[in-house]
């Protein structure tokens, strides 16, 4: 018996050190079993056919660390999260067009395109040298299939708004020849934008999948087959994604990426991530917090890069609530808050104060706009005008009926910065007699409370939006959408309605620009949100990785051009 015990202990210890290597997990899924060997064969053939060029930049592995998964993988039809979409656009799949540094569309999978005179027909001419990683050629059928899939309501494609002005379904798309495809639409602003985001899916693999089942298809995260610069190699959930260079990527687009392998690692704890970056176990740290910036700047081997991003953080005011129905009150709340101080303090200066939803780098941005400045006296005066006076001397204003100006501000659990904002607002607005009650709510519950049209259980809520390059606030502020999930503020403003209607369909940027200026003025007047800031996105990487470009377009924009210092592989 004692021996048995001793043996047990030894056995346990042995299991720790000596368990056999967990190789690639074998899948019993028929789809994957079919597809994986074909990809392996094709990649091997292409390696033979296209030997690595004699250039020291080729080779090596870059490891990127991030706190979250690539949730939907390469499943275009069900993705809206940032990491997934970026990997579809730049790593595993290809979009028809992409943007250059100045956010001008340029050819990618489509080598050219043209729009009919009346703006209702958009014709793409595809490259003929792009292959799916299992050897099939990417052609017009793939585009048509993807279009049908993402515009089909049964798919429940998350960014359905992309197709608001397109003719949805099979009638909207025709295949003209093997590499030419035409879609039908109504003329509208920035109509190409969707095609820079929605990557093309393989028709020969997914053509038989029912739209209601595509979101649950193993294609997304178990065995995606792409046509992009990197070939999917393996994915261990909550651990890592491994991509290998695509040896058959078209020469015309730069050919094989420099990196042999690109690995995406999931490390949920920021301190662990920072440690791994400092100890050189990962090369790129995706979006470190501003508080961590100083430590990264101190390290000689690290580069800290920041760029103004497309997302803004704001407090949405529920205009349906009696105390918030008056725009003067909403303006006073903004003026009573020192947003510049918040940017300096919480973001360590990595951000710029926002006055509207138009990002400062965007062509529609009006640089002359002043917005509302921090002005507690002005705010107090506005509140008095609106009938809110501290009548009983308890430090909080009341209206004529005696209701206190008490506003709850909800934010989601686990988001430090949003929590910080709620707490700072509470402290600052107390000074002008407004009682703010920060209230934390679990994310799913919060979404339900604010999105359900007949619930709208909130006064104010700290939230953030990531804008597309095609700006369109119709869902947020147009009175026609007031019963849709995202009309948080419940705005009913004819001036805003008129501008939003015009802006959505104006295709000429020169005509649109002055309208955008009007829109920004009107938005500041209305203050459905207190806009806080556009944050600068931070990224840190080891200097051994060269030629990294990260900007508004995303972090993976030129991942195929990254290369590792040959001396440090």
């Amino acid at each position, binding site marked *: 018996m004692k021996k048995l*015990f001793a043996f047990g202990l030894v056995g346990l210890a042995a*299991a*720790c050190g000596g368990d056999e290597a967990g190789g690639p997990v074998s899948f019993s899924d028929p789809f994957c079993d079919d597809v994986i060997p074909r990809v392996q064969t094709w990649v091997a053939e292409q390696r033979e056919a296209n030997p690595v060029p004699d250039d020291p930049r080729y080779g090596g592995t870059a490891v990127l660390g991030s706190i979250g998964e690539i949730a939907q993988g390469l499943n275009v039809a069900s993705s809206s999260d940032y990491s997934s979409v970026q990997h579809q656009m730049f790593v595993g799949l290809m979009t028809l067009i992409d943007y250059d540094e100045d956010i001008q569309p340029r050819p990618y999978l489509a080598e050219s395109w043209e729009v009919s005179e009346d703006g209702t027909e958009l014709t793409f001419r595809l490259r003929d040298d792009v292959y799916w990683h299992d050897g099939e050629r990417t052609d017009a059928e793939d585009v048509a299939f993807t279009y049908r899939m993402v515009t089909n309501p049964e798919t*429940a494609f*998350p960014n359905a*708004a992309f197709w608001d002005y397109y003719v949805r379904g099979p009638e909207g798309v025709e295949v003209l020849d093997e590499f030419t495809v035409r879609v039908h639409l109504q003329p509208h602003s920035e109509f190409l934008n969707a095609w820079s985001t929605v990557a093309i899916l393989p028709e020969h693999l997914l053509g038989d999948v029912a739209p209601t089942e595509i979101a649950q298809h193993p294609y997304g995260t178990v065995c995606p087959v792409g046509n992009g610069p990197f070939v999917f190699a393996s994915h261990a959930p909550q*651990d*890592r994604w491994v991509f290998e260079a695509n040896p058959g990527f078209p020469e015309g687009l730069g050919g094989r990426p420099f990196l042999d392998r690109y690995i995406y690692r999931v490390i949920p704890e920021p*301190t662990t991530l920072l440690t791994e970056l400092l100890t050189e176990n990962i090369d790129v740290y995706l979006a470190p917090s501003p508080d961590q910036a100083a430590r990264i700047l101190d390290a000689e081997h690290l580069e800290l890069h920041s760029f103004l991003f497309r997302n803004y953080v704001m407090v949405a005011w529920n205009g349906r609530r009696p105390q918030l129905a008056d725009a003067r009150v909403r303006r006073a709340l903004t003026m009573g808050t020192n947003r510049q101080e918040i940017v300096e303090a919480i973001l360590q200066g990595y951000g710029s104060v926002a006055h509207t939803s138009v990002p400062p780098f965007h062509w529609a941005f009006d640089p002359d706009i002043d917005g509302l400045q921090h002005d507690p006296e002005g705010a107090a005066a506005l509140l008095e005008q609106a009938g809110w006076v501290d009548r009983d001397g308890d430090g909080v204003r009341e209206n004529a009926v005696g209701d206190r100006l008490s506003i709850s501000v909800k934010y989601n659990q686990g988001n430090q910065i949003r929590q910080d904002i709620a707490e700072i607002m509470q402290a600052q607005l107390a000074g002008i007699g407004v009682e703010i009650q920060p209230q934390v709510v*679990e994310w799913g519950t919060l979404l339900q409370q604010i999105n359900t049209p007949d619930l709208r259980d909130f006064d104010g809520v700290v939230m953030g939006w990531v804008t597309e390059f095609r700006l369109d606030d119709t869902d947020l502020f147009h009175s026609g959408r007031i019963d849709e999930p995202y009309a948080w503020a419940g705005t009913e403003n004819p001036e805003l309605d008129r501008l939003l209607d015009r802006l959505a369909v104006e295709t000429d940027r020169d005509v649109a620009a002055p309208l955008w200026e009007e829109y920004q003025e009107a938005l500041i007047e209305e203050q459905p949100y207190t806009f806080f800031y556009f944050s600068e996105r931070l990224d840190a990487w080891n200097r051994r990785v060269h030629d990294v470009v990260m900007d508004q377009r995303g972090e993976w924009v030129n991942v195929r051009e990254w290369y590792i210092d040959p001396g440090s592989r």
Partner: protein
Amino acid sequence: MTRYVLRRLLGAVPLVLGIATIIFFVVNLAPGDPTVYMMTPGMSSEVVEQLRVNYGLDQPVHVRYVKWVAAMLTGDFGYSFSYSRPVLDVLLDFLPNTLILSACALALAFLVGIVLGTIQAVKQYSGLDSTLSVVLLFFYSMPSFWLALMLILMFSLMARNVWGWPIYFPASGITSTDYDFLSSGAQIVDRGRHLFLPAMSLALVLAAGIARYMRGSMLEVIRQDFVRTARAKGLPERSVVFKHALRNALIPVITLVGLYIPVLFSGTVFIELIFAWPGMGRAIVEAITQRDYPLVMAASFFFAIMVVLANLLADVLYAVVDPRIRYE
């Protein structure tokens, strides 16, 4: 014995079913459902409704319950929303990682606990005895996530970047990124290095209890006749302690294995998050925040089964090591 085990296993069936029912209703009656995570601007209410239909969430709770139980009895745990895969596949990816981590932590904890507990017993009431128990309790009293972060800072960051130790431990993951290209010997070393910090964080918390138990057990044994006889025979003290007393004192300590397994599983939640260890603890936390109902239910269910088995193991071990206990 076999009959006893069988009877216990049968008895566990209603228990496990009861647990499954509780989980199902806690999860399904909570506010919010998975579709809220998939919404983006422009998604109309119809699209959201379509999503609910696609995921089978449009049916009333009791219908879903019956379906779920019926499917589960045939071994079908449904489809994970967040991983877009059958729940069972997802769990089988995570389960081995958690088992490896827990097994090593358990082994380490017993090693540390038994050694220190023995020392304490031999030096009963000395300064060393109380110092050791206070030190062990110190680790026991620490929030485990905090202990884990401290270990990372010391044995990973400082060890490599500041103190320049020849050996440091990676702060995250189960293997290095170049694991596939290593020789098999190096692979084992690589795994060991990745295991060390997380296993240590878990083990240090458990060691206090084991040492305490070991100390008590050892003290009891030392007072017994056969040890006195050994001493009287003039055997050296070391041989008395290690050859005669230790073996007998170990017997009751074995049974702690079963007791500590649920504690370990709770601990892995934090440890796996901090050390980016892709295991069950992380899967379940992730699934809860994503409202991935099928995964939450199946993962909790797996945990419950493992705990039931661990309890059974504890009882059986007890019977095996202590001849006075005989089960019908």
